[in-house]
């Protein structure tokens, strides 16, 4: 099979552009300069990576994000450089032919292809809530994962079941990790995730033959080890204590911090603030909208209401926010102290009387 570089030259990409791409990838992955020739070498020599892309229980926003990766080389990379052999949304084949193409790749490259999964698996009622080509999403996932070298769970549906996994989760949607247990799974969460993140993850895999270093949440460190808050363009206003109180106030015009109008950036591990979206044009907080922490587990339950300040979000179980719970507990304790103190003084008054009487007697 032809290498990436070979393919790129055919497409009219110059050597200079190719090396620029390698350098950019190294930078994005947080690698040192010596990694650039290794990336270039890998892309020059290694055959194109076969990729099977499954769409399970999802809304296709991840796919929309993917095809909008705006740097020309990125989009080329996604759509052409990897050998994207099965992707229902984009492939020309349909029906039997599509499934046949998938099976062919799986047989020919058994153990060597990368499986990208968009959407969650579903366990409810034996998995009937999502069936593709006559089999349930779970069966399809297990079948494809069996021969995969690595599995990339792309998007919040695949990493944390996203909206369909929100309470009460009627279809019993579960993350890919819960189904695929014997293969390395890389979580690339977000609703949708940033396209460049998956590009970077695949380049890392091609270059080093291993999955990238992961955070404790199973996400590539290069993109997910910092919070949106940590790299936020409005962070200076947070530290200074300057907050937007309402979307139309003076602070909003000055671009102050959106913490108090519901920004969940302080709990969101994502690359938005650094990589940004649409070729680095902007990201939600920069554009004036609070972060929703869409990359986090159970975010539909824990980030809502979206425009409520983080500390005032009610607890999922009790339905009150921490301050209400704390003040209620303090009130109960205070009432208890007052009652106990009153009873103590009543009891003591009586026993003192008894005591002094008896002392008098003994004297």
């Amino acid at each position, binding site marked *: 099979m032809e290498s990436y570089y070979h393919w790129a030259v055919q497409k009219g990409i110059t050597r200079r552009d190719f090396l620029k791409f390698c350098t950019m990838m190294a930078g994005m992955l947080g690698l040192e300069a010596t990694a650039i020739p290794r990336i270039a070498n890998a892309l020059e020599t290694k055959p194109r990576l076969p990729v099977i892309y499954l769409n399970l229980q999802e809304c296709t926003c991840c796919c929309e994000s993917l095809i909008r990766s705006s740097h020309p080389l990125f989009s080329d990379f996604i759509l052409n450089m990897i050998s994207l052999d099965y992707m229902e949304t984009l492939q020309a084949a349909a029906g039997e032919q599509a499934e046949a193409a998938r099976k062919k790749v799986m047989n020919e490259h058994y153990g060597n292809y990368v499986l990208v999964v968009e959407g969650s698996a579903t366990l409810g009622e034996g998995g009937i809530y999502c069936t593709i080509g006559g089999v349930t999403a779970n069966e399809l996932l297990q079948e494809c994962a069996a021969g995969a070298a690595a599995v990339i769970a792309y998007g919040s549906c695949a990493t944390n079941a996203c909206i369909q996994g929100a309470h009460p989760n009627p279809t019993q949607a579960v993350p890919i990790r819960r189904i695929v247990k014997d293969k390395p799974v890389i979580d690339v969460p977000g609703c949708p995730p940033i396209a460049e993140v998956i590009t970077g993850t695949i380049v890392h895999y091609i270059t080093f033959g291993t999955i990238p270093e992961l955070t404790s949440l*199973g996400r590539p460190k290069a993109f997910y080890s910092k919070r949106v808050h940590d790299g936020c363009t409005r962070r200076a206003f947070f530290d200074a204590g300057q907050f937007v109180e309402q979307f139309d106030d003076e602070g909003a015009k000055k671009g102050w911090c959106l913490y108090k109008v519901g920004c969940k950036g302080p709990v969101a591990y994502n690359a938005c603030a650094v990589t940004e979206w649409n070729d680095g044009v902007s990201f939600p907080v920069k554009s004036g909208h609070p972060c929703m922490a869409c990359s986090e587990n159970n975010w539909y339950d824990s980030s809502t209401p979206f425009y409520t300040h983080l500390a005032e979000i009610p607890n999922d179980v009790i339905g009150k926010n921490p301050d209400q719970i*704390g003040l209620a*507990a303090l009130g109960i304790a205070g009432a208890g102290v007052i009652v*106990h103190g009153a009873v103590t003084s009543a009891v003591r008054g009586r026993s003192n009387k008894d005591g002094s009487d008896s002392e008098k007697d003994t004297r």
Partner: protein
Amino acid sequence: MKHIAIRRPVYVWELPVRLFHWINAFAIAVLFLTGMYIANPILVAPGEAVMHFIIGTMRYWHGIAAFIFTANMIYRAFWFWAGNEYAKIRFWKKVFWQDLINTIRYYLFMRAEHRGHLGHNALAQISYIVFIWIFGVVMIFTGFAMRVGTDPSGVGGMLFSWVIPFMHNENMVRMVHHVLAWAYVVFLLIHLYLVFRQDILDDDATVSSIISGYKYELPTTGQSEAVHSSDTQPALTKGD
């Protein structure tokens, strides 16, 4: 008051225990106030961002106090081993549980008297295990987890990066951290009430003992069963 002449002062709280108490009280006060401010920043800084560092300062002192709090806890844990009998908790002994039942009955006015304790009674010890030790450890782990994040590299990552996946997401970590902060205020209220109540009822210098270290032995305390003890409420005997 009539007892003072005949009562013997006993050195109950050693200096390390008293230091722990006050450092802990100071650290918790700073942590609570700065923490609540970080959660609900009420002041609006006027002018340009470059002129202020309000939340940044709060976070800075929250962090300083957190390290002091943690170091202090480790120091106290050591003193369970190194300290005198009053510095220990022996909850595996039968007498501890007997004392617990007796103390609870005493506080529910079901017993007019209770056995004197120079140190802590069993109920007080349980409350410290829960509020200071269990909640304290949860606060330390959730707090540092939010400082460290999910990057498992380094010492901090090794110790704390598992907490966020364990609690599912960082929002839950924050929620737990925030709710437990209130537990300390509830504890403070009950703690102060019981300490002053004890001092008033038995006049055994409970309140000043945390500064001087000395408490007055009650007539009924002679058996010095130091296994279980009480700072909050030693003996209340009939005619006391």
